């Protein structure tokens, strides 16, 4: 059966946590002609990378690069046309529905839009404890609440916040709630799809610091998707650059941004508006 994954302190096992090999995803486009089938849209054309436990990988790309598709495939919310996603050695897309549901405790997601990713009709407690309902055996209500309070404390929110509704919070706080929801099952991997892009600069800094702290304290790994190079550099050990569904360059952030080799990476670095 599935052993509970060990989470150690900083410097976790150097085993490969996530391995993506030759991932491809094509979508069929709506018909424009009655006779001819339309060309499928190749969102991902063969993406491969590895992520070690305790490390974080940044995925940099613009619109149309396939980064959101990649996020969905890694989270097993969509099926690849080709290729494999292996988490802790197991191919996610080959698991049975039940096994997959149990496996989801090890990987969770944080979304871009702090306003759309929380159900407006649910309390914070209900939202944050949602992953517990499916991945864990039935917990008693007090035990569940206890876990919620503990994880809210970890993200810097107060106990009273558990009974409030999302509309009572600002963007940065909602993102914290989203992070709390992702943490509650003690996952090994968090896929963060543009988690700070919709936030103001000073709020962004708070959330980035929080993510750094959590990474250190809990031995988390991030798959951090962003269009912002500076943000990615801040949180990630390795970065891959996606362009039109392919990885065009990979390396450490420092090396990539000070000496980019691929023309697209060079264009990205050059275009980032700089303060004098």
């Amino acid at each position: 059966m599935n052993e509970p994954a060990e989470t150690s302190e900083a410097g976790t096992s150097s085993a490969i946590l996530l391995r993506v090999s030759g991932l491809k995803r094509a979508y069929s486009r709506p018909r424009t002609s009655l006779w001819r089938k339309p060309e499928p849209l190749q969102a991902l054309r063969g993406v491969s990378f590895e992520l070690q436990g305790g490390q974080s990988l940044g995925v940099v790309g613009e619109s149309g690069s396939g980064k959101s598709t990649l996020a969905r495939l890694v989270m097993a919310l969509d099926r690849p046309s080709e290729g494999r996603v292996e988490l802790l050695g197991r191919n996610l897309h080959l698991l049975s529905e039940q096994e997959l549901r149990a496996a989801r405790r090890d990987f969770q997601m944080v979304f871009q839009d702090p306003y759309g990713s929380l159900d407006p009709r649910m309390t914070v407690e209900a939202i944050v404890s949602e992953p517990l309902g499916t991945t864990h055996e039935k917990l008693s209500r007090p035990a569940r609440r206890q876990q919620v309070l503990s994880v809210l404390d970890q993200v810097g929110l107060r106990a009273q916040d558990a009974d409030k509704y999302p509309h009572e919070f600002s963007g940065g706080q909602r993102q914290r709630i989203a992070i709390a929801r992702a943490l509650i099952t003690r996952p090994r991997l968090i896929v963060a799809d543009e988690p700070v892009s919709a936030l103001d600069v000073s709020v962004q800094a708070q959330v980035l610091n929080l993510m750094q702290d959590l990474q250190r304290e809990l031995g988390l790994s991030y798959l951090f998707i962003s269009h912002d190079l500076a943000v990615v550099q801040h949180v990630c050990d390795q970065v891959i650059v996606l362009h039109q569904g392919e990885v065009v360059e990979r390396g450490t952030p420092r090396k990539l941004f000070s000496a980019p080799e691929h023309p697209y990476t060079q264009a990205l670095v050059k275009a980032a508006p700089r303060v004098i």
Partner: protein
Amino acid sequence: MSRQTDTRASVPNYPTRAFTRAQPQGFGRRALQHRSFVLGALLTTLLIAAALLSFAWTPGSAYEVDMDAALQASSSRHWLGTDAFGRDIASQILVGARASIAVGLIAVGIGLTLGVVLGLVAAARRGWVEEIIMRLADFTFAFPALLSAIMLTAVFGAGMINAIIAIGIFNIPTFARITRASANAIWARDYVLAARACGKSRSAITLQHVLPNIAAVLVVQATIQFALAILAEAALSYLGLGTQPPQPSWGRMLSEAQTLMFQAPLLAVWPGLAIALSVLGLNLLGDGLRDLLDPRLTRER
């Protein structure tokens, strides 16, 4: 802890954006300030009160035939006068409310239950299931509702039950369509994606996330369908296919008054007024509810 001070505002309040639309200070208070809602609620309450009252008391008798007192004008004994058979009009109006409400409630109930289930299933399953359900709905829409109700009651026999079933059947595709459209919008939201990422099943997501978020739309539609159901019941009874005598019905009162138009014109006015006010009240209520409920669901941004 540093993380706490990061979030805690210097002033003990949680921030919102500069000119957010004001959060309602309680639904009740906003509701009471909304003209349509108040008027609609008043009229609807009147309708329900009339029906309930009729179980306990009526001014005269809605059933007793008294040929001596036929076609009298309003008096202290018969507040609205009597009809061709000497029955008290006022009492008939009160008792007739029962039929309208019963038909409205049950027919809309049928349409709501089955329609919403079909719509939710269509939105959750997509693919060919959705296609089939929506084509069935389209097919049903192709038949003019009232004519089909007439046909059904003519074939299976006149009576309140059959009227209810007929009207109910034609409510189903309306609710199915509107449910599917709203539910599809909810399925596209990020919080549903988050629920899927937690491993929630489609039925759990439908019940816990989709349904609460489309409830407002359904409530508004239900009040509007209620109004339409009252009209449909009146139409069927007018044709003799709905509520059967001796059970009073506003529609039948209208048809009976038709032949006596020049002798006692007021006979047609009272039931007509009752129908008009009920339908108006429900429409206003629906409008008011739409204003009061929907903006809360749209995003604050």
